[in-house]
Each structure stands twice: as C-alpha cells, then as structure tokens.
C-alpha cells in the first residue's frame, strides 16, 4: 500500500477495484460455465419448439400432459408425506433428547447416528431396505411369524403392502428425512431459554399455556422451515427411487431420467420444460425456507 502513487487516485481506485474482482474471477467463471450455462440452456430450450421457434407450448403441456402431471403429483405427494412424517417424528426425537430429559450419552449417540443416516442414501439405502422390508426381508419375516401369521393367518405382502410402491418408497425416504429434522431442530430446542418458561410460570401460566403461547410460536418457523427443506430434499431425489423401484414408480426425477436416456416424450424441448418446472418448485421451497429462517433468527441462536 505504501508505494501506491499519489497521483491519479481515480484511475488507481478503478484499477484496484478491478483487481479486487479479479480475485474471485475463477469462482465466477466456474459457476458460469458449469452451473449457469447448463441451467440457462434448459431454460431457453423449454421456450422453443423442435424447429427453433419461440413457443409457450412446452410450458402449457406441463399442465395438460397426463404423464407429466402424474409425475409431478407423485413427486409432490411423496415429498410432502415424508416431509410431514419425518418432520413430526424428527421433532419428537429432538424433543426427547433436549427437553425430554434423556441422558447425555443418548443425545450424543442419536446426533451421531442422525449425521450418518441423513448422508446414507442412494443405491445402498435402497438395497438396505430391500434386505429389511423386501419380499424376503428380515423385518418382513419377523412380522410374518410374530404378527401377521400368528394373529391374522396371512403374510405382510398379502395385505397389499409392497416395498416397491409409494408406501415403500416413503418408508425408505424417511430414513434420511427424520435424521435431518433431528439435526436442525435439536439446536433450535436448545435455544428455548429456561427464563421464558420461568417467566411464564411466575405469571401464572400453565404448561399448556406456556407451550401454546410461548414455545410453539417461537418454534413454529424453524419447524415449518425445516419441513420445507425436507420437502426439497425428497423432491430432488433420484437414485434411491430408481434403485428401489427400477423406474416403476414414475416420479418426476425418474421421468426426467428416462427422457435423458432416450427422449421418451418425443420432444426434447418438453423434457427441458419438465426440468425447469422442477427447478421452479425447488426454488420456491428454498425461498420459503429462508423466509421462515428469518423469523426464527430473531429468537433462536
């Protein structure tokens, strides 16, 4: 800095500002080439027809083509169900290890396991569930012997349950969904200050009033926010579903995969529109998450 010339300060500042931005140029170049360019290519592709004419037909077909509508519907359903189920169960677990008064080593073990399970996904997760709840799975056999055949005289798979179905995929997704909720909600529950409860009790509030008037209003944004995050987490999943059902359950990612492999829609541009529809829904959920995040930052952490 000492040898900066005193003359022409304007030019120097322009130069140094340019040099400053040059420092992050590699990162921006990387982002432009490998994130933005591919995304924009799909975005523009979805507004053209096969002959290169501008059109809204592809976007319109997202809402009318029964295959695509079904795929979106299935994906939204499975994401919502597992976000809700995983969210509630994950919250109860986080409650158990924070306010619920379980010993410290239990808390530590559960947190560690949640870290592992929320990262355990894809093909291995699908195979693990086949070994568990598949037709000859370990838990299937246990349930058959000790519950279904003993009391009902039938087998689990006679009830209509099937791992390679909506319910099966939902159970599999839950394996990485509820641990994520545990990981995010545990610090939030730790953030509930003892003083708030004491203040409420001193003012004569019952436990019920404390929860409905104090604790839940504070916790609701992070609970909802994390559930939105879980929704996106399941919505973008491909490998787990493909490895488990082999494409039999046509969720949106499976349909896009089929389109990449060999233009099953007979219209590449419709495929791009389908992909953009997915990005749109993911973006909405991320915006929702960060919006809810703002509320919780006021009170927690």
């Amino acid at each position, binding site marked *: 800095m000492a040898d900066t010339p005193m003359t022409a300060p304007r030019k120097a500042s322009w130069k140094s500002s340019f040099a*400053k*931005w040059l*420092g*992050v140029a590699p*990162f921006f170049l*990387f*982002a432009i*080439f*490998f*994130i933005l360019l591919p*995304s924009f*290519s*799909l975005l523009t592709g979805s507004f053209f027809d096969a002959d290169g004419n501008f059109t809204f037909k592809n976007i319109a077909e997202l809402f009318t083509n029964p295959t695509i509508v079904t795929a979106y519907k299935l994906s939204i359903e499975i994401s919502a169900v597992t976000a809700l189920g995983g969210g509630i*169960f994950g919250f*109860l677990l986080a*409650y*158990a*290890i924070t306010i*619920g008064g*379980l010993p410290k080593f239990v808390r530590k073990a*559960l*947190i*560690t*396991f949640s*870290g*592992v*399970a*929320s*990262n*355990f*996904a*894809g*093909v*291995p997760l699908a*195979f*693990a569930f086949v*070994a*568990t709840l598949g037709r000859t799975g*370990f*838990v299937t056999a246990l349930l058959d012997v000790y519950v279904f055949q003993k009391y009902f005289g039938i087998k689990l798979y006679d009830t209509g349950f099937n791992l390679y179905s909506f319910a099966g995929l939902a159970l599999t997704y*839950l*394996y*990485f969904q*509820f*641990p*994520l909720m*545990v*990981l995010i909600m545990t610090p939030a529950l730790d953030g509930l200050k003892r003083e708030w409860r004491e203040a409420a009790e001193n003012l004569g509030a019952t436990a019920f009033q404390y929860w409905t008037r104090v604790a839940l209003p504070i916790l609701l944004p992070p609970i909802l926010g994390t559930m939105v995050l879980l929704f*996106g*987490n399941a919505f*973008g*999943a*491909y*490998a787990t579903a493909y*490895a488990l059902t082999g494409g039999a359950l046509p969720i949106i990612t499976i349909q*896009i995969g089929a389109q990449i492999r060999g233009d099953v829609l007979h219209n590449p541009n419709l495929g*791009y529109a389908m992909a953009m529809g997915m*990005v749109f829904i*993911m973006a909405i959920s*991320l915006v929702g998450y960060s919006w809810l995040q703002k509320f919780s930052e006021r009170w927690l952490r």
Partner: protein
Amino acid sequence: MKLKFKSLWSWIWFLIGTLYFILPLYATLDFSLRMERDTIGFKAYRVAFADPKFVETFARSNILAVITIIVSIILIVPTAYWVRLRLPQARRIVEFITLLPFVIPAIILVFGMIRVFSTPVRIPFTDIILIQPLTTLIVNKFHLGTYILIVAGYMILALPYMYRAVDTGMRTVDVRTLTEASQSLGANGFTIMWHVILPNIRASLLSGALLTYAIVVGEVVLASFLGLDTFGPYLFLLGQHRAYEPSALTFVAFLLTWAAMGIIQLVSGEQGQTAGAH
C-alpha cells in the same frame, strides 16, 4: 411423577428411532453373512472384493473423490479468503451461488451439462466456438472431457458444504489478523495461504473434504448419465443380478459414511452436516 411420565415418552420415541436406524443395517449385515448355506461367514465380502470390476470402479470413485476435493479446495479457499478480506460486497452473490445446488438437483445438472457440452459452445449470436464439445474430448483413449464434466459436477454437489465449512473455519480463526501479522513479518501471498491460512483451517478443510468424499464415492446419477464406470453404477448393476454381494458392499458403504461422519464430529465437535446424492 410428572417428570417420569415425560421421560417415559422420550424413551419410547428414542427406542422407535433407534429401531428405524438399526434394523435396515442389521438386516443388510445379516443377509450379507448368509451366502454359504447354513453357516454365517464372510464369503459374500470375499467374493465382492475379489471382483476385478469392483476394484476398478471403487478405485476410480476414490480417485475422483480425491481430485474433486483438491480442485474444490484450490477454487474455494482463495475465493472465501478474498471475499472475507478484500471483497465483502461480493459475499451475497457468492453465497447465493453456493446455494444454487440446493435448487438444481443432480439429475437436472447432468441434463443441462449434457445439453450444453455435447455440442460446441458458441459465443451467443456468433459462430465463434468457445469450447469444443467436452463429451467427445478424448486424449489417448482417455475421456478427458467427460472426466472434467464429472469433477465439475461433483464440485457443484459439494459446493454448499465445502464453502460453508471453509467460510466458518475462516471466521473462527480470524484470517484478517493472521494476514496482517504475516504481512508485517514480510510474508507474500503464497506463503500466507500455504503456511498460515491452510494450516489454521485444517479442521474445517477436513470436514469439507470428508463430506465431499461421502457424496462422491457412492454417487450414481452423474456417473451413470455421463457414462463413467464408478462404484455407484457398479453397485446398482450388481444388485440387478446378484443377491449377497450387493448387501456386503452396501454394508461397506455404510461403514464408509459412518467413518467419514465420525471423523468430522471428532475434529469439529459439531453435529456434522448433511449432504448426499439421494
């Protein structure tokens, strides 16, 4: 009495959670040990490990993971450092970019990559070719272009976790003071980066690296659509026509994830983060 009742419910939830965690793993382990009739043994593991195809694909996945980690660090550490020290006005946009992978799932990313890089990339509205098609860039029978694409893709999948790990590390060690101290002792930029900054954020780098490893080593979407024989697609194909070996490898994959997350918690004392190719 009231307290007891409360903790009873806590124990019940904990028990259900533990069962949900453990049962799939136990079932996989149990199945993988039963390859030989009427006896418990490690035959499935021996057979799986002895397959040359396993060795080849697993090695390739590990090499890809290491390359991804190294290139990610080279790209992200100077960027995060620069933003923190010299260019705070770029923080918002850089952080926005690091969040983009949450909006663009792997399947969409690979879709866009294939569309862009399988034809020449031109400067818009001109015929000037910026890059030749990467998917057909082959040097001495080595699909260099495809490897560039997959490493870039993996870097993107890991970007949110790597960037956050590095940035958090830099915040906790106060890079500004470190830099000023080094400068006053006459260190140049490279010395500061290599001898001062990197050693001080090594715990964060390790966390980021292990998360990246956990993402890359079993990844299947990018690899299968870009047509690379890595561990993920291999395991998937093995599952199509074998029974016991995939279970053995599934259990191994679980142990690898466990090891990666365990080390992260050990070095950072944090709760670990989550990532993964779901």
